[in-house]
């Protein structure tokens, strides 16, 4: 909705108002991709996903956007995991002791499966992004903070800024190339990030326009690695579930406790988790019976490994081979060129 023209005369000062929040960033800023930043971003997004964004969404705020909708997508995942665990376990307490034990065994495994699914799905993405970063210098997960200026809800609303956490390459059609340029004011070379990538990709050093040379390659790598991450992460998640349904976990469930203040019991529980984990990995790999039943674990694990390996290989194999001709050879120095 467009506000009445009269409001334009109110001279809303975006940041001079002391009562409004202090902005951490004044403009879109590239962030370091390390554990601390990632944790901070995750925490920030999760907090917003369960507080600010639903509040805005339920009000039907005119500032609600696609980013907020996507961020709220974490909520069904988390609640869904909890509900799924509850579906298999919540009614057990009403059953007779024997049936409770039997249902509990199954329910606990499935709850663990839900947990492992989530862990493996997220963790396995690094099986693609890490090698790609190592081999190409491209960090496909590079985060940046985006400063948003919103429409005021009413004429008294001066708090009209917010920060969103995006990734530089989250859109392959519109990657934030601009953020990758160096700040010459800080003494950085303009193309230093692109130079590094060009170098890693074997396109040569000291290219005059490394940014233009590598952008198509980066784009291709981002697309391919995105495919690889997407598909392989689900196979790894499946491995997580498969691992969780192995029999050795039953030993752990017998001593499982989350009461960390009961030191001895908690330590026993942790220890049992470790040994059950090892035994379950073994059981998952070895299988039982014969034929497909025996080798199902190996097949699933193989599919996961294969999807990651093929993903990395495909990402690294470029259809766009670097140009052999140096731009210096194409432009004749004796001629005059006009760029408009």
């Amino acid at each position, binding site marked *: *909705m467009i506000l009445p023209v009269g409001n334009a005369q109110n001279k809303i000062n975006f940041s001079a108002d002391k009562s409004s929040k202090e902005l951490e960033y004044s403009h879109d800023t590239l962030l370091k991709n390390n554990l601390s930043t990632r944790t901070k971003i995750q925490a920030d997004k999760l907090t917003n996903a369960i507080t600010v*964004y*639903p509040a*805005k*969404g*339920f*009000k*039907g*705020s*005119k500032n*609600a*956007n*696609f980013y907020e*909708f996507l961020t*709220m*997508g974490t*909520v*069904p*995942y988390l*609640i*869904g*995991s909890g*509900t*799924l665990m*509850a*579906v298999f376990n*919540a*009614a057990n307490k*009403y*059953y*007779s*002791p024997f*049936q409770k034990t039997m249902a509990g065994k199954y329910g606990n495994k499935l709850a663990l499966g839900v947990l492992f699914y989530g862990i493996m799905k997220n963790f396995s993405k690094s099986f693609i992004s890490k090698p790609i970063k190592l081999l190409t210098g491209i960090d496909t997960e590079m985060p940046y903070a985006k400063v948003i200026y919103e429409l005021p809800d009413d004429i008294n609303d001066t708090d009209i800024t917010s920060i969103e956490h995006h990734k530089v390459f989250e*859109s*392959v*059609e519109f990657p934030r190339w601009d953020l990758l340029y160096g700040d010459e004011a800080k003494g950085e070379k303009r193309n230093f990030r692109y130079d590094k990538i060009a170098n890693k990709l074997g396109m040569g050093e000291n290219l005059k326009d490394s940014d233009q040379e590598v952008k198509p390659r980066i*784009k*291709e*790598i981002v*697309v*391919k690695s*995105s*495919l690889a991450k*997407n*598909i392989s*992460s*689900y*196979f790894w*998640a*499946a491995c997580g*579930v*498969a691992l969780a349904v192995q029999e050795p976990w039953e030993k752990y469930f017998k001593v499982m406790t989350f009461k960390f203040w009961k030191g001895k019991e908690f330590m026993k529980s942790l220890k049992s988790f470790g040994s059950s984990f090892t035994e379950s990995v073994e059981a998952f790999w070895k*299988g039982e019976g014969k034929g*497909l039943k025996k080798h*199902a*674990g190996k097949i*699933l694990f193989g*599919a996961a490994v294969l999807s990651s390996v093929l993903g990395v290989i495909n990402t690294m194999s470029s*259809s*766009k081979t670097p140009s052999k001709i140096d731009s210096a050879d194409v432009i004749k120095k004796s001629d005059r060129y006009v760029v408009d």
Partner: protein
Amino acid sequence: MESNLIQNFISSKQVPAYQLSAYPQTSKKPKPDFDIQRELDNRTFIKPLRGKGRLKSGNIFMSPKYMFDDFVYSAKAFKHAAQGNANDHELGKLNDVGLLAGGLSIAGYLTTKRYTPMTKGMEFIGLGSFLASMALWPKIAIQLPAYLIHGVNVGKEYEDSFGRTKPFYQDPQFIPWDLYSDEQIDKIGDRLRVPKDIENRRDFIQERMRKLAVQNNTLWMMTAGFATPVMSALICNALEPHLASYLNNRRNKEADDLLAHLDKNSKKFHTNNVQDRLDSIINMYNGKPVNGALINSVTEIFTEGLDPVTTESFKRDIQELLSDGRYSINEITAKNITKNLKERFAGKDFSPEFLDAILPDETHTMQILNDGGFIGRSVDPIEFTDVSKAIIKDISGRVNEFNRLHPDDAEDLEYVRTLIAGGEEKIHPVTSALKKLQSSVFDAPIQEKLNYLAKMFDNFGADEAVLNRYAVLKTGAAPETVIANYWGEVSQKDLFKMFGVSDAEFERVKFDRNLAGSLFREKIEKIVSDNAAYDKLMNTLVGKIAQINEKIKSSDITTHILRNSKDKSKSLYEETVERIFKRYADDMRAHGLSRTADALVGKNGDSFGSYMNIQKAYVEERMLGVKSSFYRLINTLDFYRRVANNPNGLEAANTLSREIKEELIELCKIISLEGHSSDHATKFYMLRNPNPNTTDFDPIEVKEGKVVNKFFGQANQGLTDIPGDKFFYQGGMKYMFDNPMDTQTISILEKNGLLDEVLNYRRVVLEKLGGEHYFVKPYHKIRPRQDVGSDLKFLLTGIAPDEWFFKSGQQVYNTKKWLKIFGGFGAVLLGITVLAQFFLGKMAPPKKAGEK
């Protein structure tokens, strides 16, 4: 991008002036969609390209065509992504591909961890229902109510200029409103009751539509996590019986087919196990003398999985078949005899000098055999004595010689002779050595015989495997067999409803069989005292129980003991087993395995204890166990009914005093409801009054199914079991199983075709369980009967009705409890989500035109 192309085209196109004059500005006939030539020729009209996007029509549920298009699009997206040139929209689609691939791999893996078709199938149903729930929840709980209440489809999709399908309200900051015509927006506005005479009505309607969409998307995100797993589980719950029924029919048909086309199906089960293993034995023993090890190996190969009687018979047959009954004597025999003699005398109280002097060494033994003319020819076992005599004669000579030379150390010759010749053949040092070396050789003719037999046994194994598979599919004591499914169907479906048990009532007794039993008895007593209630219960229950004859026809598998004694007809299974077994038995007889054939099918028409009977017995016993359980339940209900209706109907009881009658009825009520076969063996323990009132012969009084006891339960002290009172026990059994059934029960059983079997069941129980035989308590007479084993008693007793109710009740209760929790949760969530619509999309309309 198209705009760049156009600009390039314009700048590169040099239109000479003369051509301009030659070509008028009027355009050619426009192409249906877009004609760039026309646009460029009309330069003055150059304007942005017309958008090619369009709203997707159709209802809010995805049509199969859309689903197919979506699938094709995802496949293309995958290809583009693999080539590195996918766009954002295509990459977004890949999540669905991954989710499906991952889901299928999870279901596939978990399938390998399940053992029955049902549990395997449910893994895929689980995945399907989860994916379906993810897609259906927003449609059912969000979009549909929003559409019905507000007239706005918040899940509307559109196709952009590049043919990509996207949610219309995906990004509230970019909604392609131009795809909606003014008429469409106005129509929605009317439905939203937006006043018609306001300024910028379209803007206001759009804003309300956007608001509704944003609110609903938020509602979706906040509820989906709760809804999807619950909805998925409920879908699984609803589909499970259908899958079970489908699989049950399929398995039943599979079983029927197995028997109907046994020869064809036998090929599927055929292996060359015996033949392959025989081949390796042939390689090992080819041309060598037949010995015990060979016979043992051959026996082991052929009889794997057969019962001990058949195995032993086969061994004896094969011994005959492989040998010509004669034995070789050579240096090996001499060596063995020498060795055996040494072993025989070892540990006995003889000096080493004596033993050295009397026992021949190998050369000397050879010499004895040679002198006797035994070497180099095959001998009949009759001649074993001659060999033995020659050896003993030699040793006796040496003993005499030793005694003569060493009179002080002289030994008893008779004892020495007894040591050699006395005792069994097995330990006879000479005979046992002679028997080791049969003269027959494992040559080609023998091998040929065995090869024939191997083929026969491999074929027999395959046929037997088909019969076993049939037996397991139909009656196996395993999950999801036809009989197990039938049991579940009768036991659990509508159990509480049939007996009028509420969830709360069962909740109180769910952990204790005695409490559950009491509740069950209460319910039965109440029902049997009411004609209509009894009729309803029995019609439902008997109707369900009678299904056994549809699931497993008595012409396929028969429980002979429950049939009329005149009916000697055989079931299809029995006929097939007999046909197959007899065919092989005849073949075995023709090929020298007569003992094996006898063990297989019996002798002189008597198949008692034969392998064939074992094959036949399993299915019949399983059927008897299940049928007995249900027929006992019917009889129990009928007995309670008789007590309620006609407590004085038992003629035999009329000679008893009222106090004893009261005791008797109580005992019967307990036996019929709780008794196990072991209780029948001990003829029940009951605390009774040892000095009952013998003057009061009044008839029994009954009120609402319960006996109004005048004496029973009054005496608090001095009660004791009276173990010698066989008439009391027999009276009880007659009351329960001999006294004519209630007419209502009879007519219901007749209607359902169960009358004969139930009556026979009563007769058999009375006969086999109810007599005075097998009283094991002190002072009871013991008169064993040959034809009643504890296995038959166990089968006839079946499961105690109270135990059946307790166990089945727990299952029913658990399922209901789960459904109540999550069904209720789902219903409340759905209700809240739908109700929330009434609070969404509220906006005060702007002032009307002209208003201030």
